[in-house]
């Protein structure tokens, strides 16, 4: 406590308040049952860290922290939560690994104690980097810009490639696979299952991929062999209304009949 009090009063007050905001927000992320509450608590922690950045003369990083993290990343989290509709309580009753939580908490506290113990020792020393001194707080943007665009220019260029790869990867991953043999989603395999799960909420999700594939194949061959007349209508209408479970399978049978 003596170190905090050794600082000037505004600095100490700012640090204590921002640290409390950070810790409360971090605990809220972990302890909140609702993922939306977790995301909002994450915003709280990010703002606290941004205040600490300002306190440590990193104004540019504080602005980027607020804009990128709180403005973009958390909004992305909230968007995915709302899109998937998973803002419900976490089922903690069914726990396959009962001993994991106590062990995890013990390990975490052990690691924290170890780090704090190490922090009481010697400070790290060694050669300075070649990117220059911090400069006055007013020159923060200028200094960090010069560092990025001279010393770390190659890393900055590679960053642009990384972002491009991330954009392409996100589009490929989150794209809805097109059902049917000619669709673009064909290489992913089991293209009918997502529609089966989404279209009919009463159906439980298939446990394995093999079961769903077998089901589709048998359903696809059924209308062609069993009912020669009117197989299209039987496959699409009756399969959707009466059987209920195999509604998308009926669609697949419909498409397979049409294709030749």
């Amino acid at each position: 406590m003596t170190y905090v009090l050794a600082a000037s009063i505004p600095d100490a007050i700012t640090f204590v308040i921002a640290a409390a905001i950070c810790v409360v927000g971090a605990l809220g992320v972990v302890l909140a049952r609702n993922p939306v509450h977790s995301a909002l608590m994450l915003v709280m922690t990010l703002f606290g860290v941004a205040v600490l950045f300002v306190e440590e003369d990193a104004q540019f990083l504080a602005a980027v922290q607020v804009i990128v993290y709180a403005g973009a990343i958390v909004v992305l989290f909230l968007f995915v939560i709302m899109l998937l509709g998973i803002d419900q309580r976490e089922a903690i009753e069914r726990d396959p690994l009962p001993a994991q939580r106590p062990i995890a908490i013990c390990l975490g506290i052990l690691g924290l104690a170890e780090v704090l113990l190490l922090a009481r020792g010697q400070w790290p020393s060694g050669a300075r980097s070649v990117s220059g001194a911090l400069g006055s707080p007013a020159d923060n943007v200028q200094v960090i810009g010069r560092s990025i665009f001279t010393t770390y220019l190659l890393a900055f260029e590679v960053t642009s490639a990384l972002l491009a790869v991330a954009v392409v990867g996100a589009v490929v991953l989150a794209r809805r696979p097109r059902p049917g043999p000619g669709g673009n989603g064909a290489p992913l395999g089991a293209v009918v299952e997502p529609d089966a799960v989404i279209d009919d909420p009463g159906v439980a999700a298939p446990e394995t991929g093999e079961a769903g594939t077998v089901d589709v194949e048998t359903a696809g061959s059924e209308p062609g062999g069993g009912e020669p007349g009117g197989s299209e209508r039987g496959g699409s209408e009756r399969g959707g209304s009466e059987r209920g479970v195999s509604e998308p399978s009926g669609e697949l049978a419909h498409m397979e009949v049409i294709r030749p």
Partner: protein
Amino acid sequence: MSVAASWYLTLAAVLFTIGAIGLLVRRNVLVMFMCVELMLNAANLTFVTFARRLNDIAGQTAVFFVLVVAAAEVVVGLGIIVSIYRRRPGATADDIHGMKG
């Protein structure tokens, strides 16, 4: 005179520990992902603290690159999560135990 660097490092260690425990304890994939962000922020705080302590701008530059990588990581990770939830709604981290589609 500003607050000593050891207090910032202590705070960063606490934040990192909370994030690590949350990552191990929670089952919701999205919340686990948020805990990873928490740990990244703790590491950023350490970088900025050492940049001030050693009077070296390289720490802040490292934080800049960490921010970029974190943004890319979030985009790809959320894409994976969306595709997982599309295949099996309501999945937790325990349900994703195989690479079979």
